[in-house]
């Protein structure tokens, strides 16, 4: 991973100010951090530790407990393949294999150009559209393995 140091943005700072006094704020603040950087950078976690007066060890504990929080930067486009029951039954697993094959990376890894990472996710709750793949919040439903190349191409073109 790159050694780039992340800077705290004014927006994030304002958010922390707003939530500072509220009990149980840590997870909400971490959501904001992840939304800002795509992961939880160590240097930001250290700052939050002092701003919220929470030990860094506790932040690490919370970050590693919840699946949603990442310690490493993901690709620009995050391909989430649903492997919930309904999607699995309708071929979610095959989609996953096809994405891995075409991108040449395994699950939870990022392509060398930093463009794509592939994740397995559990039920997204739109089972009527199974099997479902979500790319940066955009839902692609009722997919077959032949659709995979088109999806990758679409985002590659966007750069």
């Amino acid at each position, binding site marked *: 991973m790159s050694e780039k140091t992340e800077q705290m943005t004014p927006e994030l700072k304002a958010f922390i100010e707003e939530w500072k006094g509220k*009990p*149980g*704020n*840590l*997870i*909400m603040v*971490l*959501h904001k951090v992840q939304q800002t950087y795509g992961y939880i950078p160590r240097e930001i976690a250290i700052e939050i530790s002092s701003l919220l007066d929470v030990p860094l060890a506790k932040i690490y*504990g*919370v970050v590693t*407990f*919840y*699946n*949603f*929080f990442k310690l490493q930067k993901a690709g620009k486009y995050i391909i989430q393949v649903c492997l*919930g*029951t*309904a999607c699995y*039954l309708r071929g979610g697993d095959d989609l996953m294999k096809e994405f891995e094959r075409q991108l040449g990376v395994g699950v939870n890894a990022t392509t060398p150009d930093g463009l794509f990472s592939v994740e397995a*996710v*559990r*039920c*997204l*709750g*739109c*089972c*009527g*559209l*199974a099997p*479902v793949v979500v790319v940066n*919040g955009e*839902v*692609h*439903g009722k997919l077959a393995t032949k659709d995979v190349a088109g999806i990758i191409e679409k985002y590659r073109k966007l750069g």
Partner: protein
Amino acid sequence: MAYQSYVLVCGGTACCSSGGDKVVAEFKRILAEQKLDETVQVVTTGCLGFCEQGPIVKILPQGTFYVQVKPEDVKEIVAEHLVKGRVVQRLCYDPEQAKKLVAEANIPFYQKQYRIVLRNCGVIDPEKIEDYIARDGYKAIEKVLFEMTPEQVVEEILKSGLRGRGGAGFPTGMKWKFAMQQPKGQKYMVCNADEGDPGAYMDRSTLEGDPHSVLEAMTIAGYAIGASKGFIYIRAEYPLAIRRLEVAIEQAHDLGLLGKDILGSGFDFDIELRFGAGAFVCGEETALLQSIEGNRGMPRPRPPFPAVKGLWGRPTVINNVETLANIPVIINKGADWFNKIGTATTKGTKVFALTGKVNNSGLIEVPMGTTLREIIFDIGGGIRGGHQFKAAQTGGSTPRSTTSRSPRSARSWALAASS
């Protein structure tokens, strides 16, 4: 209502993903172009339930029901249906490729359903509080605040026989009673919207389609148990439901239905959202409370139960979304009305997300006591591809699978299904 026709377009997650939002935009564009926007109103509703056939468009007052509508179909619907009053046959749902069914009431998928929890889903615009109010919304909170004591509210819910829809089936009134009986002081009301079981999206659809019903119910519960603060713990994976809740909370504030001195009654109640972060275990109530407090979501043994020692050690009631959505209706129509629906031991209805290899997947609500067979074959339209039924899995990962030899009803199914 000054409009001659209403075009309801499903704005649930599944239909949006199938391009429902583009259909809405196209309707608005064409209606404005033809200057029909004064007589026809386009409404984005919550989930209409028939996700398999989305995007769904329903036209009132005729109740015509169009399925798999694409933006390029909109022009024809406007020209034929809205201008000339002729049904566009090719877009109607058609199970046997034979006779065309036009109204929703004629579709088998809807005939066996009974909607209490989903009463407003697909009917109102979930981002307009006026729509909710027009359907008796916030009438129950008014009745509770001005005509009932907290004890009477708890008594009514006890009498209704409502049991928790999160999975355990614990009598809701009992939970409220325990919390009410705790000494006065800070208490909390929590809504569990951490729906995580594979294939389950009942709660998400309720929140997306009718967020105010949950806010109203939480306020009623808050009044009954003596809590001034509520939290909705919702999965971060439900961005649309989160947005609709944020909009709803703001609107309720603006009208004095949340916040200080609600409707001038002297009762204060406020609701905040807290996001889950992808931990399945946080659907369990003690883990959920840990997570709201900003900790790792580790469950702890009970007792003490949350009704005695919950959030930050204070008495806390935790109810599931679907349970709460029943509350305003019970208050408005009375426990005796609710009591007549369902079976001898379990009252009311149950919402199911019907998914997998059935012909009609989607969101359904049936009276307790409905058999699995009715759900799969009558509502679900049988097995995809004309195959034979092998097994159904009810609820999440905990319950056993059911085969064609084991008749089970919606009650046992519901109790097995967890949130």
